[in-house]
């Protein structure tokens, strides 16, 4: 294995070819599309198929004239709807990440501290909903949360409330939906981290007279920070662009940018504005995504 690499030999031995197969695929189908989004975000909408002007105008000359327009971006900043939608997505993503972290941490911690023979089955119970359709899990909540739904029926029959609560089509329903759908994404990295934790450190703290509560905050939590970070990124980043949950559970006043993008694209057929919405969302998320990538690479190595 210590041979001096010969560039020609390694080329013909196929090393490069093996790297190139997934590399080229991802460049073609993941990176290249963003260039088209950027391009179309600089075009103007027209009534045609496809519904945008072309950026390069060939005309008669050899050199094309470029017709870039920042109109879509200016439009995003002139209409307060879009800025509000970004801010509201940010708020919903941050609050729901914190809620998911609190609930997910208690579950992951309890699974990791459960007797060894239970852990396999408990972990499987966490993973199972993760494999079940997202759409179906969100749909399941509609029957529970709506005005004449099961939650109101149950609460009224016990006599806790006498008028049905309005939860469906509010932000509260969106939070419930997000926490529910993204919980496994939070639990899995936390569990992986907590399960590996060196228990002798906790015993040492206890032996030295540290109270369990303090041990938790000063030893367990700092040691599980990589798991916390990974879990939070896995929830925060996709929730920022979430569409299905605000669409099915949220109301008309629930503003989220994923829903705005969907509306611009499918209902208004304004592709340049939809592209500009995507580009700005991407710009907001690029740093969290890079931090997530770095944390994952650190965890592997």
């Amino acid at each position, binding site marked *: *294995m210590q041979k001096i690499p010969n560039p020609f030999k390694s080329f013909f031995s196929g090393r490069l070819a093996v790297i190139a197969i997934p590399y080229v695929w991802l460049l073609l*189908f993941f990176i290249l599309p*963003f260039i088209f989004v950027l391009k179309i975000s600089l075009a103007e909408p027209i009534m045609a198929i496809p519904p945008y002007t072309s950026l390069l105008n060939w005309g008669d000359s050899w050199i094309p004239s470029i017709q870039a327009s920042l109109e879509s971006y200016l439009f995003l900043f002139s209409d307060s709807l879009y800025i509000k939608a970004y801010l509201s997505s940010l708020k919903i993503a941050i609050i729901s990440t914190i809620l998911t972290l609190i609930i997910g941490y*208690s579950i992951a911690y309890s699974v990791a501290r459960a007797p060894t023979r239970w852990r396999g089955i408990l972990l499987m119970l966490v993973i199972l909903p993760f*494999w079940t*359709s997202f759409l179906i899990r969100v749909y*399941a909540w509609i029957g529970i949360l709506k005005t004449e739904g099961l939650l109101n029926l149950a609460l009224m029959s016990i006599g806790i409330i006498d008028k049905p609560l309005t939860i469906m089509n509010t932000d509260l329903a969106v939070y419930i939906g997000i926490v529910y759908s993204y919980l496994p994404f939070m639990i899995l990295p936390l569990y992986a981290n907590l399960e590996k934790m060196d228990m002798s450190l906790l015993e040492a703290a206890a032996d030295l007279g540290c109270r369990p509560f303090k041990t938790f905050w000063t030893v367990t939590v700092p040691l599980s920070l990589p798991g916390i970070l990974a879990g939070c990124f896995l929830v925060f980043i996709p929730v920022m662009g979430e569409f299905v949950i605000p669409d099915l559970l949220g109301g008309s006043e629930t503003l989220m940018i994923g829903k705005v993008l969907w509306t611009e694209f499918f209902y208004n057929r304004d592709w340049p504005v939809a592209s500009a919405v995507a580009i700005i969302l*991407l710009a907001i998320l690029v740093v969290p995504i890079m931090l997530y990538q770095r944390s994952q690479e650190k965890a592997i190595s």
Partner: protein
Amino acid sequence: MKKFGNFNIVALVIGFSFLYIPIILLILFSFNESRLVTVWGGFSTKWYGELMQNQGLKDAAWVTIKVAFVSSTVATILGTIAGLVMTRFGNFRGRTLFSGMIYAPMVMPEVIIGLSTLLMFVALAVDRGVFTVTLAHITFSMCYVAVVIQSRMSSYDDSITEAALDLGCTPFRTFILITLPIILPAVVAGWLLSFTLSLDDLVIASFTSGPGSTTLPMKIYSMVRLGVTPEINAVSTILVGLVTLGVISASIIGRRQKQNVIKV
């Protein structure tokens, strides 16, 4: 194990109730005689019979299965290669970009992936249909497979591969004869994961599909928008049942594989 106190039991009971009660209620009400999803009118399987009459739903299911089968198979091949490249190819030029392209699609909001993939297909004048949905599914599924393979390779013993190479086995044969059989459970898990991811996807499929390639989640979504009905509960129950069966059998295969290794 010590320190498994009341708090832990309460957390697990509440946590798992939260995770499972909605799904259990969903399944329960698929067997409801009444059309109302919230009032129990007696046991009945009539909604399953009704499903069989729904041609649109059956067509969508068939499209979805085809897309899921092809995309998960291709994604498993590409993802396995990508996972090996990430763990066994050392540092090569462009490695950071490569790992970025593996991790980013897993967290990237689906609306962005869907929109960008679609805009590329439109700009390149590729007709939208089953083919384009499949391409889009391969792309995000292969990243999940790559991560599954990558984590499997972190506990992989390189000395056996080295022994084969030292004895004159070609890298390709070594992979087929040595590495692949060892990591097979992870490859199968990756395939199953891609299959369910493709089966589940609504957002990316909505962007990249064309006329005649409506997938099951798209069909369910359009039904959900019209209201909650026992038929949707019935379709959902079938899907949940299939996925549960798949996950349980995959975990049994994995466990048996482990036992065999220990016996050897």
